[in-house]
């Protein structure tokens, strides 16, 4: 067995998986609190990439370069996407809060299609070249085989983001309120938690993560278009379900498992069947553990 090749694939899988995880967190947090699958989440990711593209373009013209551009583009993208996430919830989901569960789901699909077409019309349906914002670090040269500089930045940023998210959920006031709302929305309201604000915060946090993922992956693949949110969204949603939807560590684990499974499948068998491995794994895990890897089976109260 060729361990070097295996290790190369594993590294690739972890990078891919951590991007999936970053997007999956947005799905899982929203689901955890209002049991809604926010199908427009992939589009928020795409909008993040587009905003970063525009900011990076302007800044590159003004003579800045490298990591400064990346940082500022990411910050603007994050703010923009957060605003989109917040507005999306206000317009598309809040009026349907007490409607049957299918209604907000349809609304989510509608929002997804709307945003994709909006960007297509307002910007362009073509592919756009995204600048390579991560410079090549010299110290990465010896291990470039396994991790490129862009991969390293992705790993660092995702790890930091996830750590920050954990701290936020575990130790802050809003985090505590989020956990309370997740447990019981009505009860949380009764004890004086402003549930609407918590839900808005959840959407904002999810959108921030999606925007970060959008900027990272766009600067790695070097291109964006209005449809990239769809594929990313489907994969991240799969990762969220795999890990147990509604469960935050589950989304991270699900993303990593999915990324590694796809990479190993493509590396050892055939990349033509990459998606087949991803979804076959999903089916298998859901048969064995219907609630996902870390999900807890919900007891139906009668």
């Amino acid at each position: 067995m060729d361990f070097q090749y295996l290790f190369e694939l594993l590294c690739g899988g972890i990078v891919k998986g951590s991007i999936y995880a970053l997007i999956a967190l947005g799905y899982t947090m929203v689901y955890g609190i209002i049991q809604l699958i926010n199908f427009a989440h992939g589009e928020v990711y795409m909008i993040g990439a587009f905003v970063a593209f525009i900011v990076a373009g302007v800044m590159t013209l003004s003579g800045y370069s490298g990591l400064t551009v990346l940082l500022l583009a990411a910050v603007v993208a994050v703010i923009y996407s957060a605003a989109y996430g917040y507005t999306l919830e206000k317009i598309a989901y809040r009026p349907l809060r007490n409607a049957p569960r299918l209604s907000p789901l349809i609304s989510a699909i509608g929002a997804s299609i709307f945003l994709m077409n909006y960007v297509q019309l307002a910007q362009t349906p073509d592919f756009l070249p995204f600048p390579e914002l991560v410079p090549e670090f010299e110290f990465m040269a010896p291990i470039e085989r396994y991790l490129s500089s862009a991969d390293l930045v992705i790993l660092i940023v995702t790890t930091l983001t996830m750590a920050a998210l954990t701290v936020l959920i575990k130790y802050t006031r809003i985090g505590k309120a989020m956990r309370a709302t997740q447990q019981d929305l009505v009860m949380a309201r009764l004890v004086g938690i402003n549930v609407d604000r918590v839900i808005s915060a959840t959407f904002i946090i999810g959108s921030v993560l999606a925007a970060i993922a959008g900027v990272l992956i766009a600067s790695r693949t070097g291109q964006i278009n209005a449809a990239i949110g769809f594929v990313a969204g489907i994969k991240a949603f799969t990762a969220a379900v795999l890990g147990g939807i509604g469960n935050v560590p589950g989304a991270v684990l699900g993303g990593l498992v999915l990324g590694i499974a796809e990479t190993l499948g493509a590396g050892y068998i055939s990349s033509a069947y990459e998606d087949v491995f991803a979804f076959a794994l999903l089916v298998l895990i859901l048969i064995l553990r219907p609630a996902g890897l870390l999900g807890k089976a919900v007891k139906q109260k009668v």
Partner: protein
Amino acid sequence: MQKTTLVKFLAALLVTALAVPALAADTIKLGVAGAHSGDLAAYGLPTKDAAEMVVAEINAKGGINGKKVELMIVDDQCKPEIATNVATKLVSEGVNIVIGHICSGATKAAIGIYKGAKIIAISPSATNPPLTKSGEYANFYRTIAADDDQALLAAAFATDTLKAKKIAILHDKGDYGKGFADFAKAAIEQGGKAKVVMYEGIQPGAMDYSAVIQKLRNEGADLLIFGGYHPEASKLLSLMNKKKIKVPFIGPDGLKGDGFLKIAGKDAEGVYATGPKDVSKLPLNTKAHADYKAKYGKEPGTFFDQAMAATVAALNAVKVAGGTDYDALTRALKTSLVDTTIGKIKFDAKGDAEGVGFSVYQVKNGAFVEVK
């Protein structure tokens, strides 16, 4: 007894009566068959225009060997069942040589009828490979490259010019990309000069192709042939550059455009792509386009150049052969070099026009340059 003789006599008379006008006709009957109505008319009408222009010019100069050229224009709507009807009609009306048909399906249906009647057909647009390469239809010629030609060119370029030994082939699983990849793979394996170490489809639109790139390095490939379009190609190139994998990259004409150059940016540098030969600078081509514009007030449509060439080649063959005898025409088409809108052409043993079709281009300083 008497009755039978009479019937025989009458029949003989009838046959002679039918045959005589055809034999005695002092025109050269040039059939033009293709879609002139229906969904695909846009592919057929430019050919009709081209034939009309060439014939008008030749007739104005007194025709060929003293005979005027008469056009017999028939519409097959690119439908095989109509193509057989119009082919039968052309044959029964004594056509000498046919320009057409336009679509490969219709051509396939009609070509057998011409073969039985020993009539030559030259298509400006039917690209289905077996039409010529199966060797089944000796009466079929075309002035356009076959579908597999660019893959064959890419394969030959990889093994002969770039001397690659271990070739990786990737495709996007679509008809266009996989078709190109399949033909290239078959050609490389048949050539025996290099090994195909990897042959795989990739998921179009996926976020990441690292695994497949890692595999490419692991297999020790020294060249990559990719069948597909520019978004996937530039994504592959970008990731290959990040992983410092520098192997020559050859793509089909789907890459040879500004879209690829724009998206791939500096990653595009050095990439090879096959693409149609540029014929727009040929003097005859420029003149034909100018004449067309003067007459119709717009640019000519699809396959116009090829149709001009087919008509000119057909009539040149009639001139060289000194008539419309099948064997003499065949000889003339295969030996007599004729200057056309797509360059100086003659036909090879199987009926494909030599020197027509594709070239290899390489990106140099942000632009595609023909590799000589």
